[in-house]
């Protein structure tokens, strides 16, 4: 960690050698020029040179004394991440806080820094995060949203008037029961759904619209948990052009909700979708 940073208490090149220079000499904190000057100074003064040598030896001894600590396994009680105890998954309010925080990560990961992320004070450290794992299906969800929602005539393959048929069909194709959450209570009516190719198999897309004909899609995939390498993730938020996406993994499914609505509105929808889709037998 030490650098060639000049010591404030020492003087510039050519000026008299101070004791601070001697310490900085031992600790490798002098500029090369000053270092050479001190070396020259010490060559002619054996007493000072001995003192400096003793200090240097102290450094070595102290490092040697404490070095074994570095190799000890870290005790269990040390918290290695931000939340020592994971937030209860079902406490959605907490989940949404994470989502709000994760927003910065997702946006920076995409290189799309916007004002609200900057205002939230999130530094771009998240860019180095392993951000690819969930952007995969969330990315596909956003694209699918962008492709099908503007379609006036055939936004869906099977309409809401045949909801039972739609659900049966999608369940059969995905190989597991899926259902379209009922979002009428929060102002969204089901238009219908379609089957889409995912990364290696079928995925389902449900489409809804509100009273102002604003559309949102719910993308449901069984591929995400495997891709994410875990059976649950926090809520995350990302952006793909004008499309905002909330996504998460729970049990066997990855879910992504896409809309051009504000993040706040997506949170509201995500909350409701999560509430309806969470398996009742989930512990806690």
């Amino acid at each position, binding site marked *: 960690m030490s650098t060639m940073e000049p010591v404030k208490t020492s003087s510039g090149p050519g000026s008299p050698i101070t004791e601070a220079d001697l310490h900085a000499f031992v600790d490798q904190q002098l500029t090369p020029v000053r270092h050479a000057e001190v070396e020259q100074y010490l060559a002619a003064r054996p007493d000072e040179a001995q003192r400096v040598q003793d200090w240097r030896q102290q450094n070595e001894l*102290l490092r040697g004394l404490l070095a074994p600590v570095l190799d000890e396994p870290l005790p269990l009680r040390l918290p290695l991440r931000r939340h020592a105890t994971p937030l209860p998954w079902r406490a959605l309010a907490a989940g949404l806080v994470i989502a709000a925080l994760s927003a910065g990560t997702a946006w920076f990961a995409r290189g799309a820094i916007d004002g609200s992320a900057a205002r939230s004070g999130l530094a771009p450290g998240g860019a180095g995060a392993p951000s690819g794992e969930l952007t995969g299906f969330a990315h596909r969800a956003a694209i699918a949203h962008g492709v099908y929602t503007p379609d006036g005539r055939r936004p869906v393959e099977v309409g809401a008037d045949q909801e039972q048929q739609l659900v049966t069909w999608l369940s059969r194709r995905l190989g597991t029961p899926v259902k379209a959450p009922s979002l009428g209570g929060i102002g969204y009516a089901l238009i219908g759904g379609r089957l889409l190719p995912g990364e290696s198999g079928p995925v389902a897309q449900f489409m809804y619209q509100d009273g102002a004909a604003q559309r949102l899609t719910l993308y449901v995939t069984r591929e995400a948990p495997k891709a994410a390498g875990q059976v649950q993730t926090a809520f995350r938020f990302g952006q793909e052009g004008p499309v905002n996406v909330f996504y998460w993994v729970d049990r066997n499914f990855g879910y992504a909700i896409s809309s051009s609505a504000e993040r706040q509105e997506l949170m509201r929808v995500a909350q409701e979708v999560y509430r309806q889709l969470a398996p009742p037998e989930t512990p806690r």
Partner: protein
Amino acid sequence: MRAQQEAEIVACIPSLRRYARGLTPDRERADDLVQDTLERAWGKFSMWQKRGAVRAWMFGIMHNLFIDRLRAQRSTPEDPAGDDLPEAPQRPTQSDRLEIADLDRALQRLPAEQREVLLLVAVEELTYREVASALGVPIGTVMSRLSRARERLRSELEGRALPARMQRVK
């Protein structure tokens, strides 16, 4: 969530433990200090803007906790904190044993503020400026504590046989 900085914090843990062990030779107490430092660091994490290296920042947190503890200890005089023969982290060979115990004892006899500076400079290799900011003192104070610590250690260890392998260190 700023995974890079989180990783930096985690990467600091071994050197935080090393530093804590230099401050407090009792292993349990040293890890108490590390644990509290980490908890505080994670708690403050979201508010932390890039003010400098993560490492120096963490040492600053530990310094504050350490000082708090010293104050608390001083009000319980039956606790002979620094006078015990400290437990050395490891004793590699029988012949080194005496020297390591001597060195550790001499280190523990230093006043706490000198011990902090010496360890941060000599072992953790922070720059003087980083030490000043971690401890919240002017750089001149860092230099004078360093100087006093080194001279005191020198006189304590004078005349004792140092391990042969250290004799020729350049």
